[in-house]
């Protein structure tokens, strides 16, 4: 198909403005974000930080001592104990809480449904005879799934920031290393962390898209993707499989906490981003190879 498309482009020298080719991506984005399912997923993600915030508020509201200003490594990556001192920590706590389950599940649903859902509804054949072009359609699907990863992460972060600001005081941030940085610096760190968390989901999104090209059932693709996610997370906890752990796409997910150190500690974060890029390349290519040669019978 790709060979066909390049020859066609030579045959058809009429210049197309970039706007025309981006039309499909824009349509893809509006279609994705107008689905009730997408909005429901985002609503659930927005609710998680609110629930955490309220729970922490109730726990500490009855006079029991706040978790401790000492912060530090003993508290682990959950940051829960520091929320009462600084609402900004609700952002880190909420991202740490949603990254293992809620966020990837939402991404698995959207990515798994991307192609299979259209095939299931029969709309895929009309997009292809429009003609959307298989490579172009897959790129639009991949990009809109990436955008969903980012939006989902931002929904958690913004909801957490608003909830944190309403329920708790804001102020200087105590880093994991024990030093203190200003609130503005802390906010920059939060944005950086949200971006890294969103990028952590890219590998899973590529897997979901590949699975989506294998079947004509949206539900099957979503279930398979989420099932794979759970399997990988279980494998990541089995010590006997130590050798493969660094290659599992979930392995470095919680490394984003390194960005709360002073100075920033990048090693594992970069490992994570590299691994996600590798997964995106491998499964993106597999999805492309499958989708461009597939007989569309649905």
């Amino acid at each position, binding site marked *: 198909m790709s060979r066909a498309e390049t020859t066609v482009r030579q045959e058809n020298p009429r210049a197309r403005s970039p706007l025309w080719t981006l039309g499909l991506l824009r349509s893809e984005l509006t279609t994705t974000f107008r689905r009730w399912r997408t909005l429901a997923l985002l609503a659930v993600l927005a609710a998680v930080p609110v629930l955490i915030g309220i729970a922490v508020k109730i726990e500490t509201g009855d006079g029991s001592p706040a978790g401790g200003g000492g912060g530090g490594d003993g508290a682990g990556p959950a940051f829960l104990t520091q929320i009462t001192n600084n609402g900004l920590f609700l952002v880190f706590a909420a991202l740490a809480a949603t990254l293992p389950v809620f966020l990837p599940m939402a991404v698995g649903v959207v990515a798994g449904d991307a192609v299979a859902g259209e095939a299931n509804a029969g709309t895929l*054949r009309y997009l292809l005879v429009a003609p959307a072009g298989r490579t172009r359609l897959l790129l639009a699907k991949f990009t809109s799934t990436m955008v969903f990863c980012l939006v989902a992460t931002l929904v958690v972060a913004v909801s957490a920031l608003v909830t944190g600001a309403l329920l708790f005081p804001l102020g200087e941030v105590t880093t994991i290393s024990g030093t203190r940085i200003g609130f503005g610096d802390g906010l920059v760190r939060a944005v950086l962390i949200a971006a890294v968390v969103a990028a952590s989901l890219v590998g899973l999104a590529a897997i979901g898209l590949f699975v989506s090209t294998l079947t004509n059932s949206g539900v099957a693709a979503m279930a398979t993707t989420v099932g794979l996610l759970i399997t990988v997370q279980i494998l990541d906890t089995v010590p006997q499989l130590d050798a493969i752990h660094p290659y599992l796409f979930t392995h470095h997910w919680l490394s984003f906490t390194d960005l709360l150190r002073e100075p920033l500690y990048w090693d594992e974060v970069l490992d994570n981003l590299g691994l996600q890029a590798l997964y995106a390349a491998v499964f993106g290519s597999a999805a492309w190879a499958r989708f461009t040669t597939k007989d569309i019978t649905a």
Partner: protein
Amino acid sequence: MEELSAVNSEAVIDTRGLTKRFRGGQLAVDGLDLAVPAGSVFGFLGPNGSGKTTTIRMLMGLIEPTSGTATLLGRPVPRAAHSVLPEVGALIEGPALYGFLSGRDNLVRYDSADPAADPRTRRARVAAALDRVGLTAAGSKKAKAYSLGMKQRLGLASALLRPRRLLVLDEPTNGLDPQGMREIRSLVRELAADGTTVFLSSHLLDEIEQVCTHAAVMARGRLIVQGPVAELAAGARGRLVVTTPDTADAARVLKELGVTGLTVAEDRVTGELPPGDADLADLNAALVRAGVRVRSFGVERASLEDAFVALTGEGFDVAG
């Protein structure tokens, strides 16, 4: 313009030995040689499971042929599908819509999938397409609230978003009431009058007979016949029909005069005319001379259905 007329003079759809064998060995289409002349309204007939939809999907680049070639508007598919398909409107196996989008937004979605469609004229073209199928009033309603007939109309609208040189309509009147069917037929005639070639698959023979200039018949993956509708119908000979209270006498006289395949049902005697140019007036005179009281006398013109049954030998049942 020269190029256009050159393309117009040849077949709009042309397949050579087009074959599709699915994984699992099922031969869905077997060596199809189809030629659809430009400007025709081409009826594509066949029982369910005869390979019509698989053929259409191969023409649209959705399915890769196992062997053989196909050209659409003079260009090879699926290789040149990207440049040909903007000029082809299609309705394949019924409409498929996004239920959570309005009818209008469904069309906007399909139009943005076409890289050759100008986004600046999109709103206007969508409105025109809705108007053409009579859905302007329901354009803002969510598609999931549409009746089957309205969905079918919206599917047609998506095929009419841009001026097309070829329309491929797979069972376009499915789910429509008689009024809707009439509207579709007049729409097809209107489009054909504008010079659009219409490729229409259907299992409704009288529909094909009413609108099509040409037809092809498929059975079990093979093309049985193709040609102008008038010739196909002429292939099946008309039957002599005599209505009389004296059926036994009538049958005896007609048999003596060379009429074959006589059947008697109540007061009707029917049979096949003898070969050659037997004058019907002589037959009638002979009957009257023999004292047969004739109520009516005539030849029933062969319908396409007779032709179809004669060709497939099996009638219009699902292929096994």
